[in-house]
């Protein structure tokens, strides 16, 4: 297979979309938090917690969508912790985020080990199966690439649309965007900055957890330690890459995933035999940085990102 063959194959794009799906959920979650002014470095741990919570719920007998809901709830719980510490108490968002990641990860592993002390190979669940959208899935190339995915992937794309609509078309989204830009403006209009920011962090964390759950409920069918494997950190980069805009962030996630899918395939080409595999693994990260350099000039950072808001101070 050469590059052209790869890039024009439906299977490649299907893989890109599949790999992108968990990133899309988590990126949207992070984007919501950052739009409201809170950098959520808890993302990596929240994804771990979501991956576990969703999976264990299904293993315990809930339906798959029930698992998604449980993951969302678990994410919201850690979001609540993050939000309480970082918003009304205004603690350093860096520390709180890293603390939440550490806590969520270790608590998850601990729970796993307490719940399943004896197993050698973790139990499997019946994961989401690909669902071919009638008619659309028959379109050449696009059909098999986009419309033969699992329902959770479709949900990821719907989420992007929903986030964009809420952010730009509703009073709530307006308040969120304003809270990340100038909290004083929000307070002066009689809204509670604390409530808006906390809400954004809690809901955003819920979506991060669903991103994690995608790994155990859709991409795979059981839970492993370390399976999130840095995906959360990538999403932080994707939010910046997407200039805090849902559509661009989606594009970023798909591009990143496409490079990931590409490197997997390039390892099999004649180049793959000579080039160290690490170089392929590096490719998505390096290209992300290059892309950031190219589009850096135009990005509009939420002005109050990482700026705590305390009514008593000016």
């Amino acid at each position, binding site marked *: 297979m050469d590059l052209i063959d790869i890039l024009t194959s439906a299977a490649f794009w299907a893989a890109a979309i599949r790999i992108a799906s968990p990133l899309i959920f988590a990126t949207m979650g992070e984007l919501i938090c950052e739009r409201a002014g809170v950098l959520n470095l808890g993302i990596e741990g929240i994804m771990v917690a979501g991956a576990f919570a969703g999976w264990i719920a299904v293993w315990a007998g809930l339906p798959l969508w029930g698992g998604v809901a449980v993951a969302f709830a678990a994410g919201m719980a850690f979001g609540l912790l993050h939000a309480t510490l970082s918003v009304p108490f205004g603690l*350093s968002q860096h520390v709180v985020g890293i603390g939440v990641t550490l806590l969520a990860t270790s608590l998850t*592993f601990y729970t796993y080990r307490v719940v399943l002390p004896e197993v050698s190979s973790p139990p499997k669940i019946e994961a989401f199966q690909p669902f071919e959208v009638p008619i659309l899935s028959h379109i050449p190339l696009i059909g098999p690439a986009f419309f033969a995915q699992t329902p959770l992937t479709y949900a990821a794309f719907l989420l992007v649309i929903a986030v964009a609509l809420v952010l730009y078309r509703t009073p709530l989204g307006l308040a969120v965007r304003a809270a990340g830009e100038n909290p004083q403006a929000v307070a002066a209009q009689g809204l509670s900055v604390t409530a808006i920011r906390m809400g954004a962090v809690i809901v955003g964390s819920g979506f991060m957890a669903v991103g994690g759950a995608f790994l155990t409920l859709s991409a795979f069918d059981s839970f492993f330690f370390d399976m999130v494997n840095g995906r959360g950190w990538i999403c932080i980069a994707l939010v910046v890459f997407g200039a805090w805009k849902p559509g661009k962030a989606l594009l970023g996630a798909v591009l990143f995933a496409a490079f990931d899918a590409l490197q997997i395939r390039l390892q099999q080409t004649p180049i793959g035999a000579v080039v160290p595999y690490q170089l392929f693994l590096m490719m998505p990260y390096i290209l*992300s940085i290059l892309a950031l350099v190219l589009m850096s000039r135009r990005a509009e950072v939420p002005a109050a990102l990482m700026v705590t808001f305390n009514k008593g101070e000016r």
Partner: protein
Amino acid sequence: MRLEPIANPGLARRLAPPALAIAGSFLVASLLALIAGGNPFAVFGAILKGAAGSKFALLETLNRATPLIFTGLAVAVAFRAKLWNIGAEAQLYAGAVVTVMLGTGALPWPSLPLLVVIGVAAMLAGALLLLIPALLKTRFGVDEVVTTLLFNFIFLLFVSYLLEGPLKDPMGMGWPKSARLIPEARLPRIIDGLRLHWGFVLALISALVLWVINTRTTLGFEMRAVGQNAEAARFAGIPVTRVILKTALLSGGLAALAGFSEVAGLKGSLTLDLSPGYGYTGIVVAMLALLHPLGVVVAALFVAAIFVGADAMSRALGVPSYLADIMLASALLMMVLAILLSKFRVVRD
């Protein structure tokens, strides 16, 4: 609800919250131990014993604190200038790589000059690694949180390549690890037979030096000015870009010393799992210390003691060892909250 600063917090007010925070995280640990079938009342003693119950335990705590002091200082110096260096992990590895490149026989020198040269070269490597994101920030305005974060992944893959390629130990049975340092390139141990090495002393000296830089030198003043208000600093004539770049060099260099000290002091060779996230924990250490260099030492010791103690405790009680990380996380979060509450009071509006 809002926070109001307390003008003169009394001693009790200053001491109570941290004490409560530590007690709180013990409570969390006890509860979780109970759930896992361990004895909740044994938690406290076991942690204390594990962290400081013997000379061995105490020195292990100091040992673990050593790299955290370096990465904590690296983060503290950068954050003070509002250079958000999340990449101490990669810079640590840069220092480690250089240590291995020079310390495995390339320079057949006596110990002291060899160690000095390796240390300086390691610092340079870490410094250069952070210089790239710093330049991207100053030249193109690229967010360094993201670039330094991504550099962690990139550099670790690069190290992986080195360990499977040019730096692979020919005697290593094929494992991705470097050759061992020659004895001259090892940091000597402070006490024979125990793992504590001179890297710890180097860490303490670094903290002191950084403290002096911060408080007594123009560079320290400039770094703080740029961090607090770059626009005002530029107007007042401070060369902002140059200060950011100098900060990056200093920060990257300090983080690299962590790698140097771990390889030359502890491991003697480089593997891909040299650091269990010291670069990230350094952020927490720095913030706990409120970015104060001497505070970094205390915070690093605190973090190390909690971890080492809780890890030993989990084994003593026969509960999953992930409990150590849980304790560490909850102690951290409660501690930052406690520090805040000792300075502010919560007022209801």
